[in-house]
C-alpha cells in the first residue's frame, strides 16, 4: 500500500507563491521524481507530504486516509535527507533500530530487522561504527536503511545523492533503484539532476514556479515536453522562431516541416542537440544547410558544438559523438540537418505538434 493523493496544495510566503494549487496522484509502488530548478517548490512539496511543512490550503491522502493534519511521526512515512542526518551519538545499528524502538517493537524483533536492513544496504561490516567513521555514501545507505526499517508506507528522498561525488553517486543511484524494486515501496525522489530523475523514475514530475509543468514517463518528458519551459529545462535543446508560409515551417535548409498554420503564424521550433545531424565536410550532403562552428566543447564521450547556420543569426547546439567530433574544430564549416520528426512545435508556449505532424 502507498497510494498518495495531493489535492490543490497551496503554499505562499507573503506574496511569493511556492506551491500553486498543485494536484498529483501517485500509485502504489511507483517511483516518482520531482524534478526542477532551484526554488521551483519541489523540496517544499516533499516536506509538505512528510508533514514537516505547513501549507495554506489543500489536502493530502495516503491510501485513501486524510493525513493533512497528522504530525510527521504518525504518517508512516520514511525519509532520507540530503545531509544524511544520522544521529552522531549512535552506531549504525542503533541508528537503524531507532525508529523501531520508537514504534515499540520488541528487542528480539528489532535485532532481527536491523540484521536484515544492514544486509540489504550492504553495511554488515560497518554496523558497529558511528556515522563519523563512515564515508558519505555509506552514511546515506544507513539513512536509507533507517528510513526503510519500520516498513513505512512511502519513502521520501530529498536530494540524497547531491552531497556525494560522481562515482559514489552513480553507484548509490543504482542501489537505491534496486532496493526500491526489491522492497516495492512507493517512492518520491527530489532532484534537480535530470539524469538522476530519468535513470530512477517510473514517472517524472517536472516543476517550475510552484506548479507542475508535466508529469509523464521519462522518455515522454525528454522527447515531447508539453511546454516550452519544460523543453528549456530538459536536455540541450535549441529554439528557433519560425513564421509559417505556404503550408510549411522552414528554417533554411536545416529543417522543413509540413504545416496547416495560417501564413504569418509565428511558432517556436525546438529540437535536441543530439538530433542535429552534422557532417564535417560542408559539401558532402547537397541538401543540407551549411554552418560555422562557433565553439567546440570536448566532453569525453561526446562533444558539444555551438553552430551558426549561414544566412542566420540564430545559434544552435549540436551534440556529436565518435570520430566525427575529432575532425571538427572552431571556425570550421560543417553541413547540418534536423529531421522533421525530431522537431517539436510550440505556439504560445504549448506543444502544438511533434515532428512531421505540425497542425
Amino acid at each position, binding site marked *: 500500500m502507498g497510494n498518495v493523493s495531493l489535492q490543490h496544495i497551496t503554499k505562499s510566503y507573503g506574496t511569493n507563491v511556492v506551491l500553486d494549487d498543485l494536484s498529483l496522484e501517485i500509485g502504489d509502488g511507483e517511483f516518482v521524481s520531482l524534478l526542477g530548478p532551484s526554488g521551483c517548490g519541489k523540496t517544499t512539496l516533499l516536506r509538505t507530504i512528510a508533514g*514537516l511543512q505547513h501549507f495554506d490550503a489543500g489536502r493530502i491522502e495516503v491510501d485513501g486516509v486524510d493525513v493533512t493534519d497528522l504530525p*510527521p*511521526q504518525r504518517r508512516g512515512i520514511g*525519509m532520507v535527507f540530503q545531509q544524511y*542526518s544520522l544521529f552522531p551519538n549512535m552506531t549504525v545499528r542503533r541508528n537503524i533500530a531507532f525508529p523501531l524502538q520508537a514504534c515499540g517493537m520488541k528487542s528480539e524483533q528489532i535485532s532481527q530487522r536491523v540484521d536484515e536492513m544492514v544486509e540489504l544496504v550492504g553495511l554488515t561490516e560497518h554496523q558497529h561504527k558511528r556515522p563519523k*567513521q563512515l564515508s558519505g555514501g555509506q552514511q546515506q545507505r544507513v539513512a536509507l536503511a533507517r528510513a526503510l526499517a519500520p516498513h513505512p508506507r512511502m519513502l521520501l528522498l530529498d536530494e540524497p545523492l547531491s552531497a556525494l561525488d560522481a562515482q559514489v553517486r552513480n553507484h548509490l543511484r543504482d542501489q537505491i533503484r534496486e532496493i526500491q524494486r526489491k522492497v516495492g515501496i512507493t517512492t518520491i525522489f527530489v532532484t534537480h539532476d535530470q539524469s538522476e530523475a530519468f535513470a530512477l523514475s517510473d514517472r517524472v514530475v517536472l516543476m517550475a514556479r510552484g506548479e507542475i509543468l508535466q508529469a509523464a514517463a521519462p522518455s515522454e518528458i525528454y522527447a515531447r515536453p508539453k511546454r516550452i519551459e519544460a523543453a528549456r529545462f530538459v536536455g540541450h535543446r535549441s529554439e528557433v522562431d519560425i513564421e509559417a508560409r505556404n503550408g510549411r515551417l522552414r528554417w533554411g535548409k536545416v529543417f522543413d516541416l509540413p504545416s496547416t498554420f495560417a501564413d504569418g503564424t509565428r511558432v517556436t521550433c525546438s529540437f535536441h542537440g543530439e538530433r542535429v545531424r552534422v557532417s564535417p565536410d560542408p559539401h558532402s550532403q547537397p541538401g543540407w544547410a551549411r554552418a560555422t562552428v562557433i565553439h567546440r566543447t570536448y566532453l569525453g564521450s561526446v562533444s558539444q558544438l555551438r553552430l551558426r547556420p549561414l544566412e542566420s543569426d540564430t545559434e544552435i547546439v549540436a551534440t556529436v559523438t565518435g570520430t566525427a567530433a575529432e575532425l571538427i574544430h572552431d571556425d570550421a564549416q560543417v553541413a547540418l540537418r534536423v529531421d522533421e520528426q525530431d522537431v517539436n512545435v510550440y505556439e504560445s508556449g504549448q506543444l502544438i505538434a511533434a515532428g512531421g505532424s505540425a497542425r
Partner: protein
Amino acid sequence: MSAQTLSPLASAGTTTSNEAADSFLGRWGALILLIGFLGIPLLALLVFSFATAWSGTVLPSGYTAEHWIGALTSSDVLSAVGRSLFLAVAVCLINWVLVIPAAYVSVVVEPRIRPWFQALSVVPFALPWIVIAAGMQLTVKEIAPGLFGTVGLLVLTLSAVTFPYLYWAVENSLITNNAKQLSEAARMSGASLPRTLLQVIVPAIRTGVMSGSLLTAASVFGEFPITMTLIGGGYETLPLWTLRMFSGRVPGAGAELAAVSFATFALLFAVSLLITRIDTTSKPADPVRPPARIS
C-alpha cells in the same frame, strides 16, 4: 663559503629553518606569555598557602601544610563548600530544565523568537547583579512573601542571572550540530518530542551543555552580591566565608584563604579538562572491532 655563494638549495634550507623558528616562536611564544600571565599569580597563591611567613623576601622563610589541613578540615569551610555546591547543582538543574528546551524551541521550532531570547540573555550582563537581587526582593515581598529571605529565592535568582551562560553554549551547540535536521530525522523516524530531545538532541549537544553548566556552576560558586543581599550571613557560602576571613583579620586566615581559593580553582580546572577530554575521546565512537587474529 660566503653568503653570496650559497647554492639555491642551501638558501632554501636557511629560509626554511628561519620559517621554522618563526613558526615556533609564533606558536609557543603566545602560549608561554599567556601561561606566565595567568600562572604566576596562581603560583604565588599556591606558594603563599604553604608559607609559614612571607614578608620582605623573594620566597617564604618556611613551608607548612598546616593551612591546607586546617582549611580542608574546618567545619566552616566544609559547610560553606557544601552550600555553594548545593547552589551550583540546584541552579544547573533548574537551568537544564528551563534553558535547554527554550534554546531548542528558539533554534528548531520557532526561530523567529530567537532574537528575543538573545536580547533577554544580555540583561544579566547589562544590569549589576545587586540591582537584580534588590528587584527580586521587592517583587517577592509583594507577590510571594513566603519566599522572602529563603534559599529558594536565592536559587531562583541565581538561575535567572546565570541562564545566559547555558543558553549561549546550548544555542551554539544546537546550530553547529544541525539540531533542526536531526530533529526532523527523529520525527520522521516516529519519535515523540521527549524521545527526540533525550535520545537525539541532548546527546548531540552534550559538549555545549557541559561547558555551559561549568560556566554556570563556576559563577554560582563565586557569586557574592546576590547571596549577601537576599540572605546575608545566615547562609554562609564560600564567598561569604572568604569575606568573613578577610574582614575578621584572623591570624593565618590569609594562607587558609589561599588554600581554599587554589583548591576551588583546581577543582574547576579539573572539571573543565574532564569535559574537554570527554568531548575529544567520544568522537571516534564505538570500539572498532580488531581484525581477527590468524593463528
